Structures are given as structure tokens and as C-alpha cells.
């Protein structure tokens, strides 16, 4: 059975999610691997959300917001861009790989772009393979390294 990536797309209400909606209305095909999470603005995204999503088993994540200069909340998408960049560096340092995270910009009219991004990113993650976290956790279990949580009151 070939690897089916688990992908989470954080989409802003005003542009990316609207584009996703439009892609649906236009009956455009894109891989079912992409699970969409709607945010009021990509500026809502924080580094910890991206980290925990990878920790919980995502193979790839992308953040999709309005075109730069057109964020409904002025600069939310610029904040998201900085945070995505920071997280990419952190992911490179820990060995997960910053390539598994990306930021995209689109307008609410770009239904085809939404579908194209979904397709391209899914293929990128498919060629990268499953998150190294899965294999690592299996190895740790096999080595009997499963530890109970540190008890704190």
C-alpha cells in the first residue's frame, strides 16, 4: 500500500477558505489527503499550533492566507509568514525538515489555485515520505524506551 500523506491546511476565512469553497463549487479535484482548518486569519496561527500538529502525526502542513497587502486584518498574513519561516528553521534543526511546512497566498477568487496547491503539496509530502516521527517512535517503543509522563502536581 503506498504512502498516503496526512496533510493539514490552515486556511483563513476571507481568502484561502473561500478559495477552497470555490474549488468545491467549481467541482475541481484535489487529493482527499488535505484536511482544512478554518481560521479567522492566518495571523491566528502560532508556532506551537504547527509544532503540536506535527507532534500529533501530520506528515505535512501548509498555511494559506490572503495575498500580501490584501490581508483582511492588514498584516495577519505577514505575521503568519514570519512564524512559518521560524518554524521551518526549527523543524530543520530537529530533523523533521522545514520542507514539510509551507505558506501560500491566494485570493478568494482563486479556486483553481487552491486545488493546485493542494495537489502540489500532497505530491511534495508523498515524495518526502512519512514523518520521521512515526519511525522514530516505533524504534523507541521497540527499544523499550516508552516512558511514563513526568509526574507533576
Amino acid at each position, binding site marked *: 500500500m503506498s504512502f498516503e500523506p496526512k496533510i493539514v491546511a490552515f486556511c483563513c476565512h476571507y481568502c484561502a477558505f473561500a478559495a477552497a469553497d470555490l474549488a468545491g463549487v467549481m467541482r475541481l479535484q484535489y487529493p482527499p489527503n488535505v484536511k482544512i482548518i478554518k481560521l479567522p486569519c492566518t495571523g491566528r496561527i502560532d508556532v*506551537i499550533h504547527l*509544532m503540536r500538529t506535527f507532534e500529533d502525526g501530520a506528515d505535512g502542513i501548509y498555511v494559506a492566507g490572503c495575498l500580501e497587502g490584501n490581508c483582511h486584518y492588514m498584516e495577519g498574513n505577514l505575521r503568519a509568514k514570519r512564524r512559518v519561516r521560524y518554524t521551518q528553521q526549527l523543524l530543520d*534543526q*530537529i530533523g523533521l525538515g522545514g520542507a514539510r511546512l509551507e505558506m501560500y497566498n491566494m485570493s478568494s477568487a482563486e479556486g483553481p489555485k487552491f486545488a493546485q496547491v493542494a495537489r502540489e503539496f500532497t505530491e511534495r509530502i508523498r515524495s518526502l515520505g512519512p514523518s520521521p*516521527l512515526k519511525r522514530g517512535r516505533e524504534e523507541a517503543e521497540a527499544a523499550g524506551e516508552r*516512558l511514563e509522563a*513526568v*509526574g*507533576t502536581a
Partner: protein
Amino acid sequence: MIVAEQKPLDELRQMLAPYDRLLILGCGTCVTVCFAGGEKEVAVLASALRMAEAIDGRGKAIAELTIHRQCEPEFVAELREKVGDAEAVLSLGCGVGVQAVAEALPGVRVLPGLNTKFMGQTVEPGQWKELCAACGNCVLDLTGGICPIARCSKSLLNGPCGGSEDGRCEIAPDVQCAWQLIYDRLTQLGLVHLMEEIIPAKDWSTARDGGPRRVVREDLAKLSQ
């Protein structure tokens, strides 16, 4: 406030290598404001470490906790019950916090997660600059509220030196000449004549140069009586 920066991840991983069960301890005051060791930074670091270790096929158990201030004995005292069975505590407090926690938890390995840098102010969220060197004898009245000890590269008391050009210090193009700033500020205040009074050579014994310092308020402190 105290400004600090997180140590590089590689350095932290090396420091933490001998321990399988960790508590990462944040601080809710200065290091939260400079985004180095607050609750969010604790969460991100814990997640990064968990994933980094898992990718290497090791399982570290990592707990997270943030207290209001690590430099406050009252808050640190609560830690004794909260450490649980952690083998080491990675403190994301400033140098003061790390030491206070280490003292409160004898027998527990307490490690520093940050490099404490300076006392300074927020320029903008994400940027901080050094403003005070804790010299112990403040001369801000003579310099219009701009510190020559902390902000002049040479800590001159009667600057500027010959290296001041276009309001910039010769050591780096992005360092402002403190004495240019002082001159401008005193002029604005109508006090530029203060620059004609020579400030005598500084007695550094009130600074760290005089040894570890202590402040006692005899009207308040019980132990000193």
C-alpha cells in the same frame, strides 16, 4: 527588564542528553516579555525536544510548567511538590531564576536554558536594546536621561570620542553614539551647559567591579537584625 535569549537547540540537547525525564520551567515575567522563556516558549521547546528525541529513536518524557517569577522565593517554594520524578529541570528563567530554582531544589539537577544578556527596553516586539549596566551610581541627571555607561561603547563619562561620526559609533554602523544622543537631548532640554562640567573618573566599586552586591533595607529586613 532583563533580556535573555534561548540557548541554541544543539547546546540544549547536549546538556539534556543524560536525562530521560525532564521538567521545562518557564518564568512569567521578564523572559515572557522578551519571548525567551515564557509559557509559549516552554511549550514550543518541549514540543521541539520531544520530536527531536523521538526522531532519534529515543523517548524523553518532558513536562512543562511556568511560574509567575522564578526570582521570587515564595513562588519557587511551590516547586518542591511539582518536580515529581523529573531527573533534571531546564529553567527558562534568567540567571537569577536558574539559581533561585537550583537553591530551592537541592539534589535536583537544574540547568540553564537561556543566555541572560542585559537590562533593557523593548524597541518593538521582537527587538530589545541595552539601557542600564547597573553601575550602582546613576548619572542620568547629568546626561539628560541617557546612560553613558550602558550605551557608550567605551562607557565614557565625558564623551564623545573621536570615533563618533554622523551620530554613529565607530565600532559598528548600527550602534548609535550615546554622547551624540546626550548632546541632542540636553540641547532639547536647554541644559547643554552641563556638558561643559567635567564628570570625574568613575568609582567602579559600586558596580560589579566591587564584588557581589547586596542591598539591605534595615526598616524592612528581619534577618539583618
